[in-house]
């Protein structure tokens, strides 16, 4: 095996990097790959709770880097999926505890043992960002269809290019089909045109993401979830498959159609 290292980054905070990392890792593990995700957000660890693995942490990334444990010992195995592992971030240290070369070394050691290494980045363009892009083979930039997130994504895409790690690929998260249809939200086409990079995923804004995060059960584990399917589609595209972008349905629209039916019946 020779793992592919995929780094999830964004620029603006809170756009859905950790959610995407967790769901993409789940989706790839569901496809039968051996996946390790690494929380690169040192000092603000979160991937553990999103995956529901927070109670099983013994060692973390900084323990590996500072030689207090071997990589294996810090890998928490997910009980729901055979081949999904998490290396958590340290919570009580800061980003300077890890360097870009540390990240490259950890990933290189893992490369021969797994299929995918998915790294969650902290927000911003500082040390944490440099750490997580250093070992990356593919960089996925997450954004939301709104001005500040798109602007910051453009900045990050430029930095990724400057580091010769490009071209990055784009995930547009939290698309609200109702707002888009009304003309009050940038469409995925608009965002792709502005940023001029390849699109690899479009994820709807979905309250089930919040609910599933409350439970530590990523939506990609739910076979009926459309949002889960959107993440699974990203996993397929990463594997080189061509998957059409799904039509996001507009709940408001559906309701108005139902209302229309009743009206017709009543007239």
């Amino acid at each position, binding site marked *: 095996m020779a793992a592919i290292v995929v780094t999830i980054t964004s620029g603006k905070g809170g756009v859905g990097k950790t959610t995407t990392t967790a769901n993409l890792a789940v989706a790839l593990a569901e496809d039968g790959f051996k996946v390790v995700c690494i929380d690169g957000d040192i000092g603000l660890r979160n991937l553990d709770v999103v995956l529901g693995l927070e109670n099983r942490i013994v060692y973390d990334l900084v323990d590996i880097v500072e030689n207090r444990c071997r990589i294996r010992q810090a890998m928490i195995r997910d009980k729901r999926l055979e081949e999904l592992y998490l290396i958590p971030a340290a919570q009580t240290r800061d980003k300077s505890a890890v360097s870009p070369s540390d990240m490259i070394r950890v990933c290189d050691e893992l490369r021969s043992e797994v299929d995918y290494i998915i790294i969650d980045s902290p927000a911003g363009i500082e040390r944490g960002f440099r750490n997580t892009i250093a070992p990356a083979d593919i960089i996925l930039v997450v954004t939301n269809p709104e001005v500040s997130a798109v602007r910051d994504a453009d900045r990050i895409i430029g930095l990724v290019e400057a580091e010769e790690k490009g071209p990055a690929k784009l995930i547009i998260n939290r698309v609200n089909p109702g707002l888009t249809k009304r*003309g009050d939200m940038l469409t995925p086409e608009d965002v792709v045109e502005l940023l001029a990079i390849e699109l690899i995923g479009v994820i709807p804004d979905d309250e089930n993401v919040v609910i599933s995060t409350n439970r530590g059960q990523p939506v990609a584990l739910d076979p009926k979830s459309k949002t889960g399917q959107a993440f699974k589609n990203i996993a397929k595209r990463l594997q080189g498959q061509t998957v059409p972008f799904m039509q996001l349905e507009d709940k408001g629209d559906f309701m108005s159609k139902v209302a229309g039916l009743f009206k017709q019946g009543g007239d």
Partner: protein
Amino acid sequence: MAAWGKPNRQSADEAKERLKLVLIHDRTDLSQDELSTMKNELLAVISRHVEIDPELVKISMSHDGREQKLTADIPLKTSHRRKIG
């Protein structure tokens, strides 16, 4: 890419137009003011050599993928035209 439909555009239109300008600035480090100063300087240099109508000159930023381009469209007043005019 799949069609998300052509909605009747409103605030999203504005967002897109504003972002276009902001991204040009971010990518090139050129503000609108600097761009128009540069335009005037260019025109001054060019009109030292050939006759141009400043009103017809179009200098703008465009992009090809993520590559920024400075495009200048500068119609020249030909000597032929000058005779007729």
